[in-house]
């Protein structure tokens, strides 16, 4: 289209760019500062982190947690959202409402609540982060996964696909796995990457429940050494960004936007 | 002098030429349709006139004034969009009154004008309803009333009936024409439906791939198409490829059969032409009565169209389409051999290219 970008739009987009990029840029500069002289430019902050065993350990723990959260969330939600779209459309507003609750309830309150609920669980559930924390994170990620999946299901004609599949003789599981799943792949991936971002950055619950995850490590560095803290912050940003970019690339295979104004 | 003039309008998008320098004039009060398949440029042209887009070259002149650089909200043209254009947060009457409100016309005057328009489009009782409470046809009526409220110089309609049911479409198009005639507003109507264009326009401009193939009255477009595209697009037409044998006597050779058509008079020998015959002009008979100007073939299908039945006849290398009265079609069932007589008058001829070397197909 011949229409050129309007002046007002430029103003706001530049403002956004400055506001969002400045802290990142500052963090970068900070991270390059030497601990002794307090000036640029050295990679020793990064070196410190990379050589710290705790960095790798907590990173791995958080990564595994993310994967587990993703798997559990998708296993729970894909069939559920599918069923709701197919058979129980009236339930959608109810679930949308429920999906907003974790979004807005403070993680702290969540922890309090969860401790109450899981009071009598077996020890293994508590011992490693994997049991309890995954439960909490599934709840935290629920809104993001749900809304992504919901949008994905809305953009396909669930009824027609299901009926066509059944008409050709497929059973429910087959329909779900071979017909529906490929069509909501992008939405599921979107939800997965958002979950990754959440788990990799979640501090509150992990700290109150006293587990040692990646964000806990970052805060520890934050409180003890400022310049390396900037380095590790930037790295955590970078990891999340990489996840998002991966999503973008995968998502390119299908038109991303659901059209509104043409 | 013409009331609306489009002069050499050209518009390109990336690597596609949407409009290739079209020119057209409209008299005041005239109803002109832009007819063509999707992608032909008709909507692009309309949007240029409305001001939602700027031409790469060319001018738009209305009532002697050059409108090309005037922003859309100052052109004083009323536009009816294809769908979804009513403001959802306003009732029908507030939608209609919007243009008036912007112009500072308020109170009694405005209320009166709105009432007039509601009556004009037959929606007095729907005044206080919201768009989502109105049917598609009613919404378009409100859209029309809204466009007319500002007493525009030119009325523009962009396929206003495409999104509606068939029956509503026929009804509404006649109302649009009736209203337009009564108010005498110069109108440009864009559509891909040839029946629509032919039934309500003063003139029709047939577009294809960014240029105007032909402009003429509906009967000219239908009965005397001047290019193969128009012949193909408008109505159903039998197209017989032939070579001119004798230009004095109007004889052509179609697949070994000699036909005499008046339209071939004055053509040079060897010219490759297209003989165009309307289905209703082919005379069919069951017995091999031979005779002048006949083609033979076998009846393939019958398509019942009410009073008329359309027969498809398979000839030697062409398929012919003939419309016969339903009563007559009973005597010509599928499988029967028939002869089809090509009338010598009433057919058209279009040039394909010439067999003689060194000449351009013109």
């Amino acid at each position, binding site marked *: 289209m011949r229409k050129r970008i309007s002046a007002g739009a430029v103003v706001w987009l530049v403002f956004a760019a400055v506001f969002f990029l400045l802290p990142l840029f500052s963090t970068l500069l900070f991270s390059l500062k030497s601990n002794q002289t307090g000036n640029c430019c050295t990679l020793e902050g990064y070196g410190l982190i990379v050589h710290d065993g705790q960095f790798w350990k907590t990173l791995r723990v958080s990564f595994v947690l993310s994967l587990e959260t993703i798997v559990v969330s998708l296993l729970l939600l894909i069939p559920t959202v599918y069923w709701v779209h197919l058979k129980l459309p009236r339930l959608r507003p109810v679930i949308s409402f429920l999906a907003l609750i974790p979004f807005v309830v403070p993680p702290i309150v969540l922890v309090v609540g969860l401790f109450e609920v899981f009071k009598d669980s077996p020890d293994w559930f508590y011992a490693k982060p994997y049991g309890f924390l995954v439960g909490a994170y599934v709840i935290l990620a629920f809104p993001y996964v749900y809304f992504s999946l919901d949008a994905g299901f809305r953009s396909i004609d669930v009824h027609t696909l299901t009926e066509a599949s059944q008409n050709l003789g497929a059973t429910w599981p087959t329909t779900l796995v071979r017909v529906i799943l490929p069509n909501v792949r992008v939405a599921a991936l979107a939800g997965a990457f958002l979950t990754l971002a959440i788990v990799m950055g979640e501090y509150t619950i992990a700290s109150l429940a006293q587990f040692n995850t990646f964000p806990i490590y970052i805060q520890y560095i934050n409180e003890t050494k400022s310049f390396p803290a900037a380095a590790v912050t930037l790295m955590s940003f970078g990891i999340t960004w990489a996840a998002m970019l991966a999503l973008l690339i995968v998502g390119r295979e299908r038109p991303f936007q659901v059209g509104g104004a043409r | 002098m013409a009331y609306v003039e489009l002069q050499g309008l050209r518009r390109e998008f990336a690597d596609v030429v949407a409009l290739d320098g079209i020119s057209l004039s409209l008299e005041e009060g005239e109803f002109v349709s832009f007819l063509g398949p999707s992608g032909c440029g008709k909507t692009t042209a309309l949007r240029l006139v409305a001001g939602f887009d700027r031409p790469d070259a060319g001018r738009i002149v209305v009532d002697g004034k050059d409108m090309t650089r005037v922003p859309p909200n100052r052109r004083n043209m009323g536009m009816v969009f294809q769908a979804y254009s009513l403001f959802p947060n306003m009732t029908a009457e507030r939608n209609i009154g919007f243009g008036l409100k912007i*112009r500072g016309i308020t109170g009694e005057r405005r209320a009166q004008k709105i009432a007039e328009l509601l009556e004009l489009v037959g929606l007095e009782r729907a005044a206080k309803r919201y768009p989502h409470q109105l049917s598609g046809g009613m919404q378009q009526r409100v859209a029309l009333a809204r466009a007319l409220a500002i007493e525009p110089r030119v009325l523009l309609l962009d396929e206003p009936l495409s999104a509606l049911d068939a029956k509503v479409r026929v009804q509404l198009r006649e109302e649009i024409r009736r209203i337009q005639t009564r108010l005498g507003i110069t109108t440009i109507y864009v559509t891909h439906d040839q029946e629509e264009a032919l039934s309500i326009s003063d003139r029709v401009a047939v577009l294809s791939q960014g240029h105007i193939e032909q402009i003429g009255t509906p009967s000219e477009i239908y009965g005397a198409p001047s290019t193969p595209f128009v012949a193909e697009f408008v109505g159903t037409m039998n197209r017989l490829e032939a070579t001119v044998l004798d230009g004095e006597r109007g004889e052509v050779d179609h697949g070994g059969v000699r036909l005499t058509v008046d339209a071939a008079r004055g053509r040079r020998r060897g010219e490759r032409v297209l003989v165009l015959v309307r289905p209703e002009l082919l005379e069919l008979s069951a017995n091999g009565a031979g005779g002048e100007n006949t083609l033979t073939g076998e009846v393939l299908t019958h398509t019942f169209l009410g009073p008329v039945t359309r027969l498809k006849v398979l000839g030697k290398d062409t398929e012919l389409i003939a419309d016969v009265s339903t009563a007559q079609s009973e005597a010509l069932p599928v499988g029967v051999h028939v002869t089809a007589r090509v009338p010598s008058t009433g057919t058209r001829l279009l040039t394909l290219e010439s067999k003689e070397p060194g000449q351009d197909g013109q």
Partner: protein
Amino acid sequence: MSNVSTLLDQPYRGDFKNSIQISLVTALLGGLLGFLIAYAAIREGTPKVLRTVLTTFSGVAANFAGIPLAAAFIATVGTIGIVTRFLAERGFDLYQHGFSLFSLRGIELVYLYFQIPLMILVIAPAIDGLRREWREAASNLGATPLQFWRHIGLPILTPSLLGAVVLLFGNSFSAYATAYGLTGGFIPLVPIRIGYFYSGDVLSNPHLAEALALGMFVVLGLMMAVYIPLQRISSRWVR
């Protein structure tokens, strides 16, 4: 129950006041800025790629809240932050002029970093719902862009805007980690206070923690009660 009435005393009342103030400011300001930025990226004329970049970034930034964000802002406008230093070298001492990253104002600034992206994500579909035909029809009927927004655009967007602001309020109210990361827990906000009680600091009193949590739920419940009807209204028009 006596725990609940304790809520109305200081210092808890102060906590609620602070939390509500921060949430209100960041919700309104974040809502306004987020809307303007989202619209700038989506409107006609802006290259589509900018919208994709913005949406992707917002997806990350909205979750960036927490420790890393605090660290990033410390690096920017903390006492020895890059921008602070930059301004100092040019003769302008930020902290002398009353600004402090470790105050309520500072927290508001930092919160905006995830409030604005959240707003962008939430309001983008609503902006998409503004059909091009409405804009064009309004223009065709003589309206200037301002008139369009006044009579059509804003009225249609208002339920979505309000709903989004309410969501932003809730989001801010329940934020914990960022404030904690900035101040090490020394700022009087409700979530922080709950954190104290819970992790066994000072006055270990889980019941008070629960009462505080109840207080938060009430605030949030009110918020939801406003949000749901707004959503229903806004979806009515964008059919």
